[in-house]
C-alpha cells in the first residue's frame, strides 16, 4: 500500500505507539496515509480504538513475525 509517512514505533510500549501516531498524523494533510510499524501486541486493539474514536480510518492492520504494520488515513 502507498503511504506518505512512516512511523517506526518498534520497541515502544503503550501508550507511546498511539501518542506518536497522533503526532505523526498531525503533520499530514487530509487524505494522506501514515504507515506505523510496532512491536507492542496491545497496539492492534489500540490502533483500532484510536481509528474509531478519532475518525481517522484504519486502512489495514497486519502482523508479520511479531511486528505489526498499520496504515491509517488522515481524515
Amino acid at each position, binding site marked *: 500500500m502507498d503511504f506518505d509517512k512512516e512511523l517506526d514505533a518498534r*520497541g*515502544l*510500549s*503503550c*501508550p*507511546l505507539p*498511539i*501518542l506518536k*501516531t*497522533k*503526532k505523526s498524523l498531525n503533520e499530514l494533510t487530509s487524505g494522506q496515509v501514515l504507515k506505523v510499524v510496532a*512491536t*507492542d501486541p496491545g497496539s492492534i486493539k489500540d490502533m483500532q*480504538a*484510536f481509528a474509531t*474514536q*478519532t475518525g481517522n480510518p484504519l486502512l489495514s492492520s497486519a502482523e508479520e513475525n511479531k511486528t505489526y504494520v498499520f496504515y491509517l488515513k488522515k481524515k
Partner: protein
Amino acid sequence: MATLTEKMPLVATDAALDRAISERIDRLLDQRLEAKLAELKAARTPSMTIIATKGTLDWGYPPFILASTASALGWDVSIFFTFYGLELLKKDLRKLKVSPLGNPAMPMKMPMGPAWFRSIQWNIPNAVQSLIPAYEAFATKMMKKTIKKSGVADLAELRGLCIEAGVNLIACQMTVDLFGYKREQFIPEVKDYVGAATFLPMAKDADVSLFI
C-alpha cells in the same frame, strides 16, 4: 405559558384546530428529539478529569498515561494534582522513588540477566527490607531499569507529551501552602493553582472522573 388560543385569538378560536396542532407538535417532537440528541452526542467532545494524589514513581504513571492517551483520542483532559500528587509537577521527575516496603503487590524481579534469573520473585520480608541501607534507592533503580527495558515511556517524556497535547495541569494551592512549596519548584506549564471548589465543577461536567 399562554395557550395558542390566547396568543392567536383569530386563528385558534377553533378548539379542534388547537388540538390538531398540539398533536402534530407532539409527534414531530418524538421523531426529532431522538435525532437531535444523537446529533448532539456525536458532536460532543468527550472529557476527563483526574485527581492525582500520589507522588511515587509507580503512582506517577497512571495519571499521565491515561491523560496522554485520552488526549490522543481527542478528549479534553484536566488533572488536579493534590497532596503528594504535587511531586508529579516538580521540575525534576528523576527524584521520584518507589518503595517495596509494605508494598506486597510490587513484583520483585531483577530486570537483567538470563531468563531464569529474571523470573525469580525475590520475596524479602519487610523487617529485613527496612534494615538494608539504600534499599529503596536500589529498588527504584531496578524499577526504572525494568521500565526502560520494556519500552515504556520515561515519566518526564509522558508529562511532556501531555503538555504538548494540551492536557490541563492544575495544582492544589492548599497543598502548596501546606507543604511550604514555592511555585518556582514546579514546571511553568502548570495552568493554575486553585482549590477544590474551582476544580469540582470541572469534574461534574466531565464524562470520566478518576481519583488516583
